[in-house]
């Protein structure tokens, strides 16, 4: 059919309300994966300050750590990493064909666990920082 109305891709995300567990898991995993690789590049860039000598390195790191916003971002990073790890484990199970029937439950479990771990880690991350 040459003449036909193609509803196209626009609708895919417009239909987010209709997504099921597996689709959300996929989107979150993708999102967290991209964040992590983005962070890896940033991380190496930050660590590269070591090339300019020990003081530069220490100053850069401690300077960053003194910033409240960096601490918040770190907590965010932890959340992202934890979810990616937990869901990654879920995916590895799925790849091995284990527990496929419970795939939606394991996704919800990853979310809940991520939340718990993130909250629990806040005190550790927020020590010695002033707003």
């Amino acid at each position, binding site marked *: *059919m040459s003449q036909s*109305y193609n509803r196209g891709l626009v609708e895919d995300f417009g239909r987010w309300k209709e997504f099921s567990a597996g689709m959300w898991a996929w989107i979150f995993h993708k999102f967290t994966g991209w964040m992590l690789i983005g962070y890896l590049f940033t991380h190496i860039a930050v660590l590269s300050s070591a090339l300019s000598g020990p003081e530069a390195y220490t100053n850069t790191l401690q300077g960053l750590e003194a910033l409240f916003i960096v601490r918040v971002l770190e907590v965010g990073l932890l959340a992202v990493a934890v979810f990616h790890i937990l869901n990654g484990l879920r995916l590895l199970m799925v790849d091995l064909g284990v527990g*496929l029937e419970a795939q939606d439950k394991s996704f919800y479990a990853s979310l809940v666990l991520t939340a718990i771990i993130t909250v629990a880690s806040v005190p550790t991350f927020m020590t010695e920082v002033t707003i």
Partner: protein
Amino acid sequence: MSTQQQQPETQEAPEDPEMKGAESPVDEKEKEDGMIDQTAADASELEGKTVLIKVFRYDPEVEGKQEPRFDDFHVPFEKGMTVLDAVMYARDTYDSSLTFRHSCRQAVCGSDAFFVNGKQRLGCKTQIADLEHPVRIEPLPHQEVVKDLVVDMDHFYDQMHTVEPYFQDEDTPNPADLEEQRQSPENREKIKMSSRCIWCGACMSSCNIAAGDNNYLGPAAINKAYKFAMDDREGEAIKEHRLRILEQEHGVWRCQTQFSCTEVCPKDIPLTEHIQELKREAVKKNLKFW
């Protein structure tokens, strides 16, 4: 319109098809008058009432339908009524141009997969009473719409054909000798679910990856290949050949285990499981040569 609908029992069909685009939004008054509203109702609660279905309309040729729209139809409810029954009623009573594929009415021909209330379902296998109201009926997403609820299935068929969906025998006996190839009941059981596919396309339509990558074989085709690859009658050499097709770039690896295919399949085929098993088989096969 709404004045007519004060008495739902004796509801008249709007005669003029042109009008239906215009009467789209249901106003509050109708709801009070015994129309079914949002929640899924018990079948007994629906008895004697009408259900509102909102059907996607589009026709590239007909003026006024070139811009997609939703038409409302009020269909008298009967116990046992399926989504397919409802659209058939709407077509036969209100608007004969309402177009959709259907044939067997018993979930074997796979013609009537629609997007019903945001999920791919077979019209004939979905009870109206199990749905939230009003019921929104659209063509399958991710396929081009030909007209109303009819989508172009060519791409789906192409993908199915790509996996060489036919038995490839190495050396079968002469049929005249009435000698069959042996197959253990266990092996037959293994391929049982995969062999139930009715080519409805629901799975393919639900898969985000298939939507993004037109070359992705898709769950149905991979499942078809599974049926042959796991059948002991074909033999190892052919199984390897099949895996070679499946492990192409746009084969099994594209699957991101979203599970939506498995969720929508009206034949309850464990599609994700089959795809994952083939991934492992393919890896195993490749490891052998290392």
